[in-house]
């Protein structure tokens, strides 16, 4: 009975379609479904087929097969040939895992400890420590790596260049300390420790103090409370932070290049590029594919943990009255130590780059050896750098900077807007298939290490009908756009989640059209979060090296790739000068936007 009535009353298809298309959110989702599928899945297919193809150059010569014919040889070489496989896959894989694990643990140890001291104890100078501590996160990770070599390289290791520590203190650090896995772990761990600090600190701050207070009333000691109450509650967040640092460390390319080249310590991502450069493209793509699989796996694990234990991390309390642990006599020593450490890793790099960029002979820090030649001089030819003059009066540098800034702004405009629209549409249609599909597709590029991602697009741009893209500004923009979309769409989703749908519906009832609703209601309310969404891609592009090195038409096309070529070819003064410039620009943009809107880089982070 009931069923027939419902059948009779079912709406006609065109009516349902009309209702569907009358919602802007649906149109947005459909649009992005198509675009994102093309931009992230299609290159994936290219990469997969490239794993089985014979490429021109080394592969063709070695295999004596026609270019483009199918082969399983790449797999055989990598996994059957014991010696080759060990050197080109297993050892790099092992190194990557060690670096990723070590960095994750170190990052959490440092970030978590500082977070606990800042939120839960009566530490001195909290504001200062908190502000300076997040600083390294703003700087590109490779600046810390450069800083590390600047400080510790010495006459006995690597290229034999004298670093600051040897020059000033006369101490030669052993090779394992200067190059290889140990410094990689330290640098990546330190770089991401502010991330751990922000995440864990946020939870410690929001955690209902009564949870700990009730344990105090039950006569638990301070230590027992930390062990049995605090730590278990923040555990899911810690795990998730670990996994995120792990996957970032695993995918890191620039840090292992700077700290591993001298001793030929390869990780998977540096090996991938080395293989491709040496003409073993098929094997390079296999490694790229394995990296993506691992990235997906780690994110899957992360989602499993955070999803399952969500009830833990969302504990927020009203009681803001936290009784701080009194550090008593330990207060000053601990504060001093933290201030020293934060200063060392936040301010010292700047000082070091400034110094390195003004000395003629590396390792000699006497005043007589200093010059501003690398900044504004014209006597460059004697250093045979290929740079006619110091970077500030050099057209190559300005052109590179202009391209980088242009790229950053273009990418930011497109990606920021897309992120906001995706955020809006996904939140409004939450739970629907379309919303899930688009959100996942937009997040997909995050799973791919930058190097693997660049490699894939390189493969696309050197094949078929896309040859016109190769080396173009458009390709750089496209790749950077897709690569940084995950952050923008995450921040878009998060900011739109903050706005209850009623806020928009209240305007809908007055007949406010969609565009006006966005412009007059939603955007102003989430102004700072949305601007963060635009700011993030700017900073990402400004400091990105790995993604661009493969795709630029020539090494000095962009500022960051220029820097990379300076450092690879040993003109470290120019390298330091450019690095300092990049850091300054990033800090400048961040503080400018911060002043204007209250949005900040570290606010948009970690979403």
């Amino acid at each position: 009975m009931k069923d027939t009535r419902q059948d009779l009353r079912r709406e006609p298809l065109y009516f349902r379609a009309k209702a569907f298309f009358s919602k802007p959110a649906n149109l947005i989702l459909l649009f992005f479904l198509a675009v994102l599928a093309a931009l992230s899945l299609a290159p994936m297919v290219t990469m997969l087929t490239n794993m089985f193809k014979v490429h021109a150059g080394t592969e063709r010569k070695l295999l004596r097969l026609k270019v483009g014919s199918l082969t399983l040889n790449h797999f055989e070489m990598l996994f059957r040939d014991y010696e080759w496989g060990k050197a080109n896959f297993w050892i790099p894989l092992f190194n990557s895992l060690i670096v990723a694990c070590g960095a994750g643990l170190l990052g959490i140890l440092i970030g978590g400890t500082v977070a606990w001291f800042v939120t839960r104890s009566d530490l001195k100078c909290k504001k200062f420590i908190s502000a300076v501590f997040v600083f390294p996160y703003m700087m590109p990770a490779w600046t810390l790596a450069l800083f590390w070599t600047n400080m510790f390289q010495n006459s006995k290791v690597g290229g034999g260049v004298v670093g600051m520590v040897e020059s000033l203190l006369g101490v030669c650090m052993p090779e394992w300390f200067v190059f290889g896995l140990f410094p990689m772990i330290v640098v990546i761990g330190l770089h991401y420790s502010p991330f751990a600090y922000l995440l864990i600190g946020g939870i410690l701050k929001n955690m209902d103090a009564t949870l700990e207070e009730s344990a105090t009333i039950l006569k638990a000691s301070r230590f027992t409370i930390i062990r049995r109450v605090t730590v278990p509650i923040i555990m899911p967040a810690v795990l998730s932070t670990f996994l995120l640092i792990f996957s970032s460390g695993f995918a890191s390319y620039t840090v292992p290049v700077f700290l591993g080249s001298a001793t030929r310590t390869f990780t998977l991502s540096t090996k991938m590029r080395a293989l491709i450069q040496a003409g073993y493209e098929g094997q390079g793509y296999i490694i790229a594919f394995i990296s993506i699989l691992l990235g997906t796996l780690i994110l899957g694990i992360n989602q499993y943990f955070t999803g399952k234990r969500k009830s833990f991390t969302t504990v927020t309390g009203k009681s803001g009255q936290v009784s701080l642990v009194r550090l008593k006599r330990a207060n000053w020593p601990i504060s001093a130590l933290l201030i020293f450490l934060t200063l060392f890793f936040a301010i010292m790099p700047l000082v070091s780059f400034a110094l390195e960029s003004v000395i003629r002979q590396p390792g000699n820090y006497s005043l007589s050896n200093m010059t501003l030649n690398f900044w504004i001089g014209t006597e460059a030819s004697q250093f045979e750098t290929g740079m006619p003059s110091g970077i500030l009066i050099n057209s190559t540098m300005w052109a590179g900077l202009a391209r980088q800034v242009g790229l950053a702004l273009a990418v930011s405009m497109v990606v920021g807007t897309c992120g906001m629209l995706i955020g809006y549409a996904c939140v409004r249609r939450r739970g629907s298939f379309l919303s899930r599909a688009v959100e996942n597709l937009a997040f997909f590029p995050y799973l791919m290490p930058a190097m693997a991602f660049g490699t894939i697009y390189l493969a696309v741009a050197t094949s078929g009908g896309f040859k016109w893209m190769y080396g173009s500004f458009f390709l750089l923009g496209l790749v950077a756009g897709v690569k940084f979309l995950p952050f923008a769409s995450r921040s878009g989703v998060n900011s739109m989640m903050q706005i209850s749908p009623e806020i928009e519906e209240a305007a809908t009832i007055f007949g406010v059209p969609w565009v006006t609703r966005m412009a007059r209601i939603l955007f102003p309310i989430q102004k700072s979060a949305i601007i963060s969404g635009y700011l993030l891609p700017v900073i990402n592009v400004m400091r990105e090296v790995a993604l661009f090195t493969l795709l630029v038409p020539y090494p000095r096309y962009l500022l960051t790739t220029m820097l990379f070529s300076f450092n690879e070819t040993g003109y470290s003064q120019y390298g330091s000068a450019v690095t300092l410039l990049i850091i300054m620009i990033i800090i400048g943009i961040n503080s400018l936007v911060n002043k204007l809107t209250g949005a900040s880089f570290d606010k948009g982070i970690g979403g």
Partner: protein
Amino acid sequence: MPQIILEHINKRFDKFVAVDDLNLVIEDRGFVTLLGPSGCGKTTTLRMIAGLETPTSGRILIDGKPVYDSEKGINLPPNKRDIGFLFQNYALWPHMTVYQNIAFGLEMLKWDKKRIQERVQEMLKLLKIEQFVKRYPAELSGGQQQRVAIARTLAPSPRVLFMDEPLSNLDAKLRGEMRTELKRLHTDTNSTFVYVTHDQLEAMTLSTRVCLMETGVLQQYAPPLEIYNRPANTFVAGFVGNPTMNFIPARVLSRRQNGLELSFLGREALFETANAGEVGEDAILGVRPEFLPISPNGALEAAIYSTLPAGMETTVKASCGDTMLTSVVFGSVDYEVDSRVRMDIVGSDIMLFDKATQKAAASGRVVFPG
């Protein structure tokens, strides 16, 4: 003036049925409450009438004009339905001042500036919030925000006003005050109010008609007192009224001309009624606490379980055999725990439900022999 008609309205979210074949007529200038526990489909219903949600099938008419018709493919957007909507969380725009919040909708309706100014002033005065005109929502208390939200909703003089649990975020005292004001506003604005709440007291005190729903199905649609005195089934009977109605298991022994012979709580009695409907052998006797007084000559004997004096009246819980009975006594009385008392069933508003269908079978009075 508008009358709202819902015909065979269905709403499904995937396989979940939120509203199931709902038929409803909301009279012009009525104050209708959609009442029910959370998840019963009342908010969905309200949002469908307002046009914020699209029904899966059915027909909605406002003022004789179809605003939604699944067969003819009509679906008017909310702004073409001439309605106002008051949200539970007020949905004030946090980046606009009180003035801007109220004026925004009027600007969108392309009113000229002077008219907007006058109307906003009028609204501020009506809701007694003139002094807050330049403040931002975050600088107002919950009650003041509520008034701004009402002002914003009323400003374009909608003919129908929808309210989704508007008082649930206020504290008890303020809620009482706002209830009075809302009822007053209903008369003053001369429009139709449709009001969603899970608070039965609110529904009872405010509305001209209550529409009680459970799991998407309409249970009863009647004036508040009829809902209270003649509930259509045990769900309605249990949901409305505080303390809850006593449900006493009973057996129907025989039918008589003037009623039914019942056996319950170890006693036999005549349920005197003129309108006995279908009832099986197993039945449930529904007795409101006020019809179960404690009296020295009562027919039932019970042991005091606990006493809850509230000043004006006292709720007494007592066990009679295995059944816990609730009685409300006027004034403050205190009984010693476990002391024995006698209770009586009085009045002619005693309900009899069929146990199998849970539906009301009859109303009448209980007469104990002798």
